[in-house]
């Protein structure tokens, strides 16, 4: 994996897995969600069953820069805010 790439970890439907291929660490949230949606839909994420209705619109991405023991890491997880958090509804 290059210095500008990252592993993508996904949690979905009670399972957890990594995308088979690294992605650019600087990819936008929308790009990452798009790639993960495609991968989960076609069943190419080890450990996560193929799901044609996978929807990550209310998930968020945590970004962790590489350390001495771990490469760049992107984690896609459900959002967790509660209350009157202002959101732009499009």
């Amino acid at each position, binding site marked *: 994996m290059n210095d500008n790439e990252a592993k993508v970890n996904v*949690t*979905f*439907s*009670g*399972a957890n897995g990594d995308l088979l291929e690294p992605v650019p660490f600087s990819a936008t949230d929308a790009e990452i969600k798009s790639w993960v949606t495609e991968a989960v839909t076609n069943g190419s994420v080890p450990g996560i069953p193929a799901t044609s209705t996978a*929807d990550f619109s*209310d*998930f*968020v991405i*945590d970004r962790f820069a590489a350390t001495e023991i771990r490469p760049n890491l992107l984690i896609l*997880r*459900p*959002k*967790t*805010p*509660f*209350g*009157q*958090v202002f*959101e732009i*509804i499009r």
Partner: protein
Amino acid sequence: MLETGLIVGHHDEPLYWHVPNDRTVVSLPDSETLWGKLWAHFKYGSLKGFAHSHPGSGIPSPSHTDVTTFAAIETGLGVPLDWWITSQDHVVLLRRVPPGSHNTPGFQHAYFSTVIEAPPWTEKLRRLSEPNEEI
């Protein structure tokens, strides 16, 4: 008053009090830590649901943020959970309407809301919702 959260176990026992420093009177911000705790208790098989407090009195109702967060977490875990919201004098329990059993246009996520008697952890959740209260 500061919004406060609680992960609840299958025997209605408190599992994790969520009192982040950046909570406000009307919000609990997104939290990587909270997701980690929810995931851990799900994997342990101990997770029943999540409660949070709202300001004021009367029958509380979920915000748009609340409902979309309920749905996102259930999508991540692959199971429905129980969701409680407390006010100063009421508690409601929300559970997801089974897919296909409602057809209201514009509603992606629908939850039944029921006023219930206060669970045993309610008093402490309300107390921790007061400024300067500690666990």
